[in-house]
């Protein structure tokens, strides 16, 4: 049971990672980010229940709240850049370099 769970979370994590790294649209990257975070939580929940340890479950809840806060901040940053309904992609956001 344990290994299959680790496999699923690893798969999910890698897919989130690809979304963040490969895609250019900011919103899609934000989704990828959230997927990565939740993928990382799966083994935590699994282990917590396996160890019958309520602290672990409480920790998962706290981490979810933090992830939510993070999403809020990310969204506000991204949406602020929206001009006449179009969102710039990462290529447009590259004038700071060198």
């Amino acid at each position: 049971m344990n290994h299959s769970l680790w496999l699923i979370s690893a798969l999910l994590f890698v897919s989130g990672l690809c979304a963040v790294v490969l895609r250019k649209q900011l919103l899609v990257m934000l989704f990828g980010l959230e997927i990565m975070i939740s993928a990382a939580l799966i083994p935590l929940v699994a282990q917590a229940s396996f160890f019958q340890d309520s602290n672990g479950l409480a920790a998962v809840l706290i981490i979810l709240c933090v992830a939510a806060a993070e999403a809020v901040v990310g969204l506000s940053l991204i949406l602020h850049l929206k001009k006449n309904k179009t969102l710039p992609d990462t290529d447009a956001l590259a004038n700071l370099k060198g």
Partner: protein
Amino acid sequence: MAIPLSVVCLFAAPVSALLFGYFFLLKRKQEWMHWPMILSCAVVGVSAASIAAQVYSGHILDVSPFKWMPVGAWSISFGVRLDGLSAIVLSLVALVGGLIHVYASGYMEGDPAFGRFFLAFHLFYLSMIGLVVSNNYVQMYLFWEMVGLSSYLLIGFWYQKASARRASLQAFFTNRVGDIGFFLALLILMNVFPAAHARFSELFPLLGQGSLAISWVGWLLFLAAIAKSAQFPLYFWLPDAMEGPTPVSALMHAATMVTAGIFLMARSWPLISLAPHLPTTIAAVGAFTAVFSGIIAATRKDLKRILAYSTVSHLGIMAFGLGLGEVSSALFHLVTHGFFKAALFLCAGNIAHALHKSTASVDETGGLLKKIPVTAVFFTAAAFSLSGIWPFAGFYSKDAILGAAFDRGGWASVAGFAIAFLSAFYIFRMLFLAFLGPREEQHPPEHPHEAGPAMNVPLFFIVLGAIGIGWFGTQFYHLASSGWLGVSPLVKIPGFDWSSFIRSTSMAGLGILAAYLWTMKWPSFDWDWRRNMPWIETMADADFGVKPMVAALTLLVEELSYLLGIFWDKKTWDGWIENTSLWAEDAAKTVSSLASGRLNDSLWWILLGGGVMLLRLLK
């Protein structure tokens, strides 16, 4: 034991004259500059005479009062050694120097830099005295260099002339090359015999049977002597040194300075004699120099150049005598040569003075016998003395050396004959061309006037010396033998050797006859060979290849310095160091191009970093 007053005066008089002259007379009354100098020459002359008398009666003085460089056990000190050798040369320097000072006060009359001349001249006088009386090698080296400095100042006295400047530089550099030998010899001596502090009296007893180090020291001292006494390879600076005023040529480049090398070898004879093959080499080099420069002297046109090459030739003779073991007769020849060569130079000075030029060429003289008879008589007497004709001084010393040469036989006797013939030939060629009837190629001056008494009186005394000094040979050898370290037992008073007398006088007579025929009899053979065999002329001008070789050497050193100083140091090495900033710039460009500014790239880099961290776990 207290230092006798005479020794103190030896140094105090010239030093006070120099200081007084520089600080008081130079700016205010530079025409009176010669008075303090002549006064100090007088004082030095008297003290030299009293020293000679003391040494003659057997009182040798060797004392080191001041410590110069004290570093614990290792130390160098100032000191004075008055024995036979130093007394003789000191008297020569004092006497001839004093007379030439008087001559110079007349000769240099009206020269704008009169004051500077006498300061440099008297500086030379002081350093020559210091060199002669010093009792250890380091102090001798100090005065050896001071003599080199004063020759630089005096040769380059008329610095406006480019040739004078070049000659003074050449003289100083050649002497410095020789000083490499002296410096290295000092280093070896100070380290092989540390306890002796390079002092003669302590050093020579320690030599024993000689060793590699001692032979090295001997050879190095010979190198120093070659440069200073103008022996074969390093002689070329002496003829060019004639750029200086005539009194300078007379005192320094004839009588005293150039003999410093011979004096050094005579002083360190116990050391040189222990080096295997060294004395024979000295003899060979001396003989070759004598013959070689004798030939060149015969081809020169400028009067002072002829006398310069003649000096080189006679220095060769002294070295030849020294090499053959005749140390005392070589010293005697040094003294007699000091007199007659100084006399010849001063006569040449009179001729030049008569022509109102700094130096005279054979083309511009001729038939001067009637116009300046006094100089002619003095010149003839000195010429006889130089060619070693019997009653004159030159005969006694030269005959002793030639006698030893004939005894040695083989190459030495051949050289002896050549020397006897050549020295008579070139001096009488000069005599006939200058004083006897003018030849058609010559255009003598209209009305040359005889030099004034200030010049002729000291000349008269020097000519007296040139004639009479030979007769006092026995007293000379007795004086020489008292206290001369390591050489006293060798000194023997040479008797009148008929066989060498006949041979050398006949060769000298033959030389005179040949000179007469060469210049006067046939249609001016002296000028013919220059016209139809010009290549000999160019060969002789180039000292048979020595001058171009020297020029090539200096060019090589200049090229080397350019290669190292500019090409390598400035362009290549420094260029490479400064280019490191360019390479850093290129590296900076590539590095800053990494920061593309796109978010995805930075995320890739984060993954890469994470990957490396995890890879580290596998090890």
